[in-house]
């Protein structure tokens, strides 16, 4: 399977704004909300390889995060407009690793990069399960290359 030529390997997975509520006493967005935005972005990047909301509800399986690496590179202030782009770094029978990059729209500065390591989970048995073959094939076809991030 070859990737859709129309769709870049890094897809836009979040577009929003920093709320005053998300800022702490240091005057910038608190770290927990970077992760919240990665979480929002995750559902979009999963959908880009076939793990759509409908797939999750029907097949009762989805990737669950088991490890996350984050680099906080620049601060975000209340009112800042943010964009997340995400893609697939690694794919194996039960595991997917996703890459996320958060950018401040006004300056194009990269504020955060993150790798999220996941294991595919059976939502009823609450145990790991093999990835759907079509999903795995699409993930492998859409793996980020070294220059893509």
């Amino acid at each position: 399977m070859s990737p859709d030529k129309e769709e870049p390997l890094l897809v836009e997975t979040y577009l929003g704004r920093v709320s005053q509520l998300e800022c702490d006493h240091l005057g910038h967005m608190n770290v927990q909300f970077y992760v919240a935005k990665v979480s929002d972005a995750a559902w979009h990047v999963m959908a880009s390889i076939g793990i759509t909301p409908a797939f999750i509800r029907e097949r009762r399986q989805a990737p669950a995060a088991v490890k996350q690496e984050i680099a906080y590179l620049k601060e975000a202030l209340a009112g800042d407009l943010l964009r997340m782009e995400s893609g697939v770094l690694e794919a194996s029978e039960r595991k997917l690793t996703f890459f996320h990059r958060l950018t401040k729209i006004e300056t194009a500065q990269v504020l955060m990069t993150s790798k999220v390591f996941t294991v595919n989970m059976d939502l009823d048995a609450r145990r790991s399960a093999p990835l759907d073959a079509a999903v795995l094939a699409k993930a492998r076809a859409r793996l980020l290359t070294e220059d893509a991030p």
Partner: protein
Amino acid sequence: MSGLFITGRGAINAWECDQWGHLNVQFYLAKASDAQALLAARLGLVPSRLRGPVPCMMPVADRTLFKRELRAGDIYAIRTGIRGVATDGTLDIASRMVNQDTGVESAVFETRLRWVAADRHTALPWPEDVLAAAQALAGDLPEAPPPMAQTAPAAPDIATLELTYRGSVEPWECGADGIAPPRAHIARFNDAITHLFNAMKIDRNSLFRRGFGSAALDYDIEYRRPMRSGQGVDIRSGLLAAGEKIFHVVHYVVDAVSGEIITSIVVTALFFDLAARRSVPIRQALPGEAGGLLAALAARTRSAA
């Protein structure tokens, strides 16, 4: 539509959903507000230009149609475009929220914004660069929805309406300028409807146990004054009309001290079967006394107007 561009993208979280199992109305407006900030940046109103005691854009009116439910785990995108810009400082925009998995349109937002001074109330003409950018971006947009069948009485006898909410505006609900965004208004309307239901002898828990829920279809909101951090506010509510399935409610957010109207909203709503996710006649959802009270309350609200 060539005049619409992407202004929002995200996912629905479980904590944004209510007891009816779908995205609560306040979060539609929160996501629409974020989309408006993306639109503002396109016009040159980037965040760094809007920080501090400087002029900004404030919503004047919002028309929101809730067309399809969104549930936890759904992914969405919002597209926004400009319908028109007036040199006196107003901007009419249209936003469309789409379930990105199904492609189905879930909400329609038609919003009028106004350029206001640092006091967040005094109208100003647009800066020349913003006006030129808005004129250049105005394009082909989806048709606007027709006017709602019911309108909010402009000068109601507030005291005769039901008191359905009393509280104060918290700083954490507001922006850095201490002004509450549309979400904070909607969250209060959402609380108020439960008390209006109580006045109509409708117990939401009983409704839920019998397998019925209530849902808003359409909002027509007028923001008359800014709602500020620390302000004490009441909501006065009434029923404007009730048909076989649809009913119209009006709420006014009023300053608890001065009694001035801050916001008015007319809501078109219905009851629905929680399993079938389909609307039901009011008489089916509200057997007995409650159904009969609807017509009486609607008449009382009209006389208060």
